[in-house]
């Protein structure tokens, strides 16, 4: 059994990160660092409360593209589902009508389970799934046309989008703006974050969507792993500084070569 060349440093860094994460989870009962509450996550009850007060529905989507099996977008969809699990519960508890635009068919089963679970937990009969979960299309522009139309018909008071978003970003968020919805948008697609930062009320940028699940769980062990995320960031910054200084002073690409090992 041999290590594959070019992946050795990656493995070492992964082991370090895993070690820190597990260590932080293990000491959670004895010590927990102060974790910054993400504004985008803390505002979710407010978004649902707004819908309850106005008697309007809440719209949720994880976007249209990719699937759970894809390396880049799968975790983003997963993050969206974690948030949805929480949102569904709160919506049912507060009697808010929930509308979910589905684009990734492989999430359909999970979404159905979350909705069913939310109604069962409140002791309420499960309504027609078609009224809540609405599969539009896997085609980008067919999906966004359907979402735009849906928003204009249903006039949601809040719109939550967590997942991979492509060129439909502007139309998605502008449709919400036009109907006066309060919007929380989160994506790790860096090229589309600027639209959301400008047009939506709350944004979960990049890594924040992955942290959302941990924060929502309220579990000390899970939230403690977020500290490991910060430690890993410090290691990256340190490597960057050493690399830049070393290269500037000696012209040697030591860090780059080390990372490429």
């Amino acid at each position, binding site marked *: *059994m*041999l*290590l*594959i060349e070019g*992946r050795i440093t*990656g493995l070492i860094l*992964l082991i370090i*990160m895993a070690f820190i*994460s*597990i260590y932080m*989870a293990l000491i959670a009962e004895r010590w927990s660092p102060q974790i910054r509450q993400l504004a985008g996550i803390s505002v979710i009850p407010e978004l649902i409360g707004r819908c309850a007060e106005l008697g309007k529905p809440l719209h949720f989507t994880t976007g249209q593209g990719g*699937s759970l*099996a894809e390396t880049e977008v799968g*975790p983003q969809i*997963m993050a969206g*589902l*974690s948030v949805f*699990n*929480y949102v569904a519960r*709160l919506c049912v*508890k507060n009697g808010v009508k929930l509308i979910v635009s*589905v684009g990734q*068919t*492989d999430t*359909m089963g999970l979404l159905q389970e*979350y909705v069913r*679970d939310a109604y069962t*937990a409140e002791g309420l009969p499960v309504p027609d799934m*078609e009224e809540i*979960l*609405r*599969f539009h299309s896997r*085609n*980008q*522009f067919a999906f966004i*046309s359907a979402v735009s139309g849906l928003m204009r018909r249903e006039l949601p008071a809040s719109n939550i989008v967590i997942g991979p978003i492509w*060129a439909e970003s*502007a*139309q998605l968020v502008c449709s919400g703006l036009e109907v006066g919805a309060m919007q929380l948008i989160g994506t*790790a697609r*860096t090229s589309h*974050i600027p639209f959301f930062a400008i*047009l939506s009320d709350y944004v979960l*940028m*990049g*890594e*924040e969507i*992955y942290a959302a*699940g*941990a924060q929502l*769980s*309220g*579990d000390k*062990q*899970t939230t403690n*792993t977020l500290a*490991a*995320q910060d430690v*890993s*960031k410090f290691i990256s910054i340190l490597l960057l500084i050493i690399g830049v200084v070393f290269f500037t002073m000696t012209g040697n690409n030591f860090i780059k070569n080390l990372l490429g090992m």
Partner: protein
Amino acid sequence: MSYFLRRTAPLWLTTIISVYLFINYYFNIGGLQIEQLLLSFAVVITTASLGLGLINLSRSHILRIQRMQKGQWYYSIILLVSMIVTIVAGLFYGADSSEFTLLYDSTVSPLGSTLMSLFIVWLAPGAFRAVRIKNVESTALIITLMIILIGGSPIGSAYLLDSLTISSWLNSVLNAAAQRGLKITIGIGLVILGIRLLSGLEKTYLKGEITE
């Protein structure tokens, strides 16, 4: 559903498969190359789930027609008829046939292109919202925006060479640095999420785990 099926089984399944894929990525383990098989499972599940989508879409629109939902039922008829015609064309003539591609090329493609071209219309409200001086950051944003606009316009590149230089510097240095910073943190966030999933700490995606 029992606690084992709801929570224990998915967690163990996730951990075992993730550990296997993890080892397979870093080590030459040979002889046990089942990752392609696992990936093909994913493809099959994704494809099969399209059926779920189809059922959901059909039921949703049939309900609208049954209820004669105001302003919507006739669109539902159009959608269902289009869907049936496309499925029939695909099944009888094949997905590569000229009949099937004609359907696609004469409807979906032009509609998609039209919507893509409307992208700029959707950008206008964004630009309008962005160019409002509210604080230091928004002022810096407007100044940057003006430089990029001038640098990208024909008159700017023809007569104001400096603005083009500043514009490309802003893009290739400041913008690239910010984008890379974001990408590094996204990568780290992804790895930590992976570790949480692998160790069974991330449970919010599981049925029945949220207790707000």
